[in-house]
């Protein structure tokens, strides 16, 4: 017997070390691949990062956005952590039969708890199988490899229960309530002679051991790499969500133009943190299932972007470093990325360089489809940053290759020339204020002449200044500021474009030119506070201009209106007898967490009934206008704005509201497309508030705008 145990122990040690070695190799190989990427920027902000780990990793907050799948994952996540102790106990039992973890009096409690955990995991495995293969949840893949993890975990759980049962028979232990399942199994097989039970125990024990090690080796080379990459990725995620990287355009005169490239044109141009995203991706499809482009039939799927880039990085990594990503390498031969590792270095590199990342792996059409709404990022349990990657690739297309959608190109050129996407004369920018001469809307220059000061710079935005529908929002807001005694000024014709469209389309060069000019104008006029009706300008001034040395207090109009309503400077009097649903702008909500101020303003209006859509707040669907897509025509699939309008109509509103001129245009077009624009009005929060504030107390129930 001792000889057998000796051999058993030695085999166990060899197998375990081999397993650990392969695991280490697979991890190290991927780290080597990631090192091909650029260095990432990183600021410590430890508090934020630990809070993310606490809520997102341990609290599973993102996963629980899908209640059922989230619960399954919680069961697996905590089950898997806890069951490791049971695995160690199992090892001890097989290496030194008759012994177990030295937990003294606590041991019976421990075994009972372990069985409970094991059963919980088994329930989760069955439930997960049901969801993937029987309920056929759309976002989940259904191949064999998609569910192989269930086989691994199921085997682990069953082998441990069965092994414990056999151990009881073999060692002649009495059935015990602290190991109910094992005891039942032991009872069921009580007719077995002890030797047979011993053999079966060791078979189960080895199945358990080998499965654990096989799973360990499988983890880093599959979507299960998220076990490692996920938490790390959460820890490393961006401090300000959706904030774009700044490109430096400083290079010396001798740089060879052929070598110059901006944005990400090949996989090594991504930074290492972005590459970690690829490995952190679990292929759960949560991103794609909320993506406004994917769900309306466009070619873009954020999940597939991650997966394709990961596979491409494996291919390229194998070719460049000569290290095979799939281990043990002999088991895979020349399959998949391993073929590049086995080729001669030069041939491999030449072959992989034949593949253009943009074009062959990721198409221009996919990149053009993104509205930069960040719903994917919000849904992602491992905090992947799809949008940043997409824009980095757009930057390459636009700046290095000069390729973009002709309509987007026109908008960009118009911004370049006249400071607005329509190319309307920059001398007409100020004209909107003539719409209502009773509203006092001074320019900074006019105030200066009168030796007066202003507190807020009102950034009207191109929409507010030129778009006839949005001009009304600007007027309503200015009127409210007059009423509340807020001192403000506009830049008039000196206002240009915030640069958001240019930046999100990928023209970083133009954006930086614009930003520099704007900052100069702000500094010249000693601007310290900016208020705007445009969430895109709000976001870019607040979060991205600081990178260029401009820091001001930036406020969205719904925030200041909220303050003014709360402190009584604006009193909504008129009753608005409407049932209203509020649509969240992505750049206000998901980018800046401004969800409540607009809602509170609406709630302060007498008689107005506020109803929420199914997809609201952080899961509010995009209107379709972000990322420069306001200026391009949707040619494939359904229209995003119509889809969003349909979601609004589901809750039977008589009005749809928003706090963004882009959203409002899209939704208003949506009601026209659905042929309900005669019954259902679309209005900005400021307009509705103005209606109530400037009313003499009567009630309005007729259709509005």
């Amino acid at each position: 017997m001792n000889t057998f145990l000796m051999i058993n122990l030695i085999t166990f040690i060899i197998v375990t070390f081999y397993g650990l070695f392969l695991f280490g190799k697979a991890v190290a190989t991927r780290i080597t691949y990631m090192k091909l990427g650029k260095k990432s920027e990183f600021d410590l902000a430890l508090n934020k990062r630990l809070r993310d780990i606490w809520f997102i990793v341990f609290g599973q907050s993102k996963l629980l956005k899908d209640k059922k799948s989230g619960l399954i994952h919680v069961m697996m996540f905590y089950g898997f952590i806890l069951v490791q102790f049971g695995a160690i106990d199992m090892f001890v039992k097989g290496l030194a039969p008759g012994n177990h973890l030295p937990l003294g009096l606590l041991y019976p409690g421990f075994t009972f708890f372990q069985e409970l955990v094991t059963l919980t995991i088994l329930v989760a495995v069955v439930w997960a199988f049901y969801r993937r293969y029987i309920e056929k949840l759309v976002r989940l893949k259904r191949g064999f490899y998609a569910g192989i993890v269930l086989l691994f975990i199921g085997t682990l759980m069953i082998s441990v229960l069965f092994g414990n049962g056999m151990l009881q028979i073999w060692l002649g232990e009495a059935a015990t309530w602290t190991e109910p399942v094992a005891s039942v199994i032991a009872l069921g097989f009580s007719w077995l002679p002890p030797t047979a039970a011993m053999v079966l125990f060791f078979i189960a024990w080895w199945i358990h051991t080998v499965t654990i090690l096989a799973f360990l080796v499988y983890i880093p080379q599959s979507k299960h790499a998220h076990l490692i990459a996920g938490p790390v990725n959460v820890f490393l995620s961006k401090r300000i969500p959706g904030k774009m990287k700044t490109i430096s355009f400083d290079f010396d005169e001798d740089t060879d133009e052929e070598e110059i490239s901006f944005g990400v044109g090949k996989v090594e141009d991504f930074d290492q943190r972005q590459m970690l995203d690829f490995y952190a991706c679990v292929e759960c499809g949560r991103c794609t299932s909320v993506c406004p482009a994917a769900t309306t039939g466009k070619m873009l799927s954020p999940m597939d972007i991650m997966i394709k880039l990961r596979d491409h990085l494996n291919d390229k990594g194998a070719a460049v470093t000569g290290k095979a990503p799939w281990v043990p390498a002999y088991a895979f031969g020349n399959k998949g990325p391993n073929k590049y590792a086995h080729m001669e270095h030069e041939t491999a590199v030449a072959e992989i360089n034949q593949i253009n990342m943009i074009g062959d792996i990721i198409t221009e059409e996919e990149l053009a489809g993104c509205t930069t709404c960040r719903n994917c990022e919000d849904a992602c349990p491992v905090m992947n940053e799809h949008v940043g990657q997409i824009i980095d690739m757009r930057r390459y297309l636009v700046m290095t290759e000069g390729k973009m959608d002709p309509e987007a190109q026109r908008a960009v050129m118009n911004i370049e020339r006249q400071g607005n996407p329509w190319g309307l004369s920059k001398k007409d920018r100020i004209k909107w204020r003539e719409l209502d001469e009773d509203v006092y809307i001074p320019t900074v220059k006019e105030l200066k002449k009168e030796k007066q000061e202003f507190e807020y710079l009102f950034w009207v935005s191109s929409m507010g200044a030129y778009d006839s529908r949005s001009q009304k929002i600007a007027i309503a807001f200015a009127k409210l500021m007059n009423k509340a005694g807020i001192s403000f000024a506009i830049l008039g014709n000196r206002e240009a474009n915030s640069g958001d469209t240019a930046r999100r389309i990928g023209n970083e060069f133009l954006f930086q030119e614009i930003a520099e000019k704007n900052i100069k104008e702000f500094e010249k006029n000693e601007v310290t506070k900016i208020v705007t009706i445009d969430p895109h300008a709000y976001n870019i001034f607040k979060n991205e201009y600081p990178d260029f040395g401009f820091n001001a207090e930036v406020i969205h109009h719904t925030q200041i209106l909220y303050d003014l309503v709360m402190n009584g400077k604006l009193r909504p009097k008129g009753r608005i007898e409407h049932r209203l649903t509020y649509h969240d702008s992505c750049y206000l909500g998901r980018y800046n967490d401004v969800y409540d101020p607009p809602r509170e303003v609406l709630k302060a209006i007498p008689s107005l009934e506020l109803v929420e859509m199914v997809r609201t707040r952080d899961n509010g669907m995009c209107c379709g206008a972000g990322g420069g897509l306001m200026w391009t025509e949707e040619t494939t699939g359904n229209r995003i704005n119509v889809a969003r309008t349909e979601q609004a109509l589901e809750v039977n509103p008589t009005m749809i509201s928003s706090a963004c001129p882009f959203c409002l245009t899209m939704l208003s077009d949506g009601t026209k497309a659905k042929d309900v624009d005669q019954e259902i009005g679309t209005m900005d929060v400021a307009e509705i508030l103005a209606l109530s504030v400037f009313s003499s107390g009567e009630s309005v129930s007729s259709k509005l705008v």
Partner: protein
Amino acid sequence: MNIYVLLKKTFDTEDKIVINNGEIDEGDAEFIINPYDEYAVEEAIIQRDKHGGEVTVVTIGDEDSESQLRTALAMGADKAVLINIEDDLEDGDQFTTTKILEAFFEGKEPDLILAGNVAIDEASGQVGPRLAERLDIPYVTTIVGLEMDGETVHIEKDVEGDVEKIEVNLPLLVTCQQGLNEPRYPSLPGIMKAKRKPLEELEIDDLDLEEDELEPKTETVNRFLPAEKSAGRILEGEMDDQVKELISLLKNEAKVL
């Protein structure tokens, strides 16, 4: 293949035109490549990439015209020529332009000359055809398609919305119409490369021309802006009354009936 593009700098399409003392005030207007000339530049680059050769962009203008030439170079043209008339000529017309270009092309052997269909400022559409006449080569205006097959050129010409198919031989001058192509957006590396591409500056002396040879044949008598458009009116009331009112307005106010 020697491909030449005739390029003119114009006001941005949306810029306001201001007239001061009978002269157009350029003030702080934005200047662009005449949009039709942009099609010409794009087409020249496309044809060069297909058939080889060199694209030279030529403009007549002032110092500031360099900016538009650099843009054309950034798009992919190989060389640029600026014929600077700032110090020599007070005034000029299509005759002047044609004469200068004729002198410029002397001794050169262009295979294909591309120009815009019209320039959006004065919209005469004359320079292309007149130059072709002077150079004694065939020309086709308002083209929307161009395929070269050796010396033979297959052209699709826009004729008021219809398409006329024409076969013609090189050397040839064409003027480009919207729909011919989608002009590219210069890439940043392109813009950087453009800074080092050759840009030759000539004055009329260099072309052996005298000022008096270039006297315009036309005279500008007056410049004025179109009357401001007044807002439309929406008639209200019963349909019959509206019709009556409309007829009376057409008779009495608009005086078209």
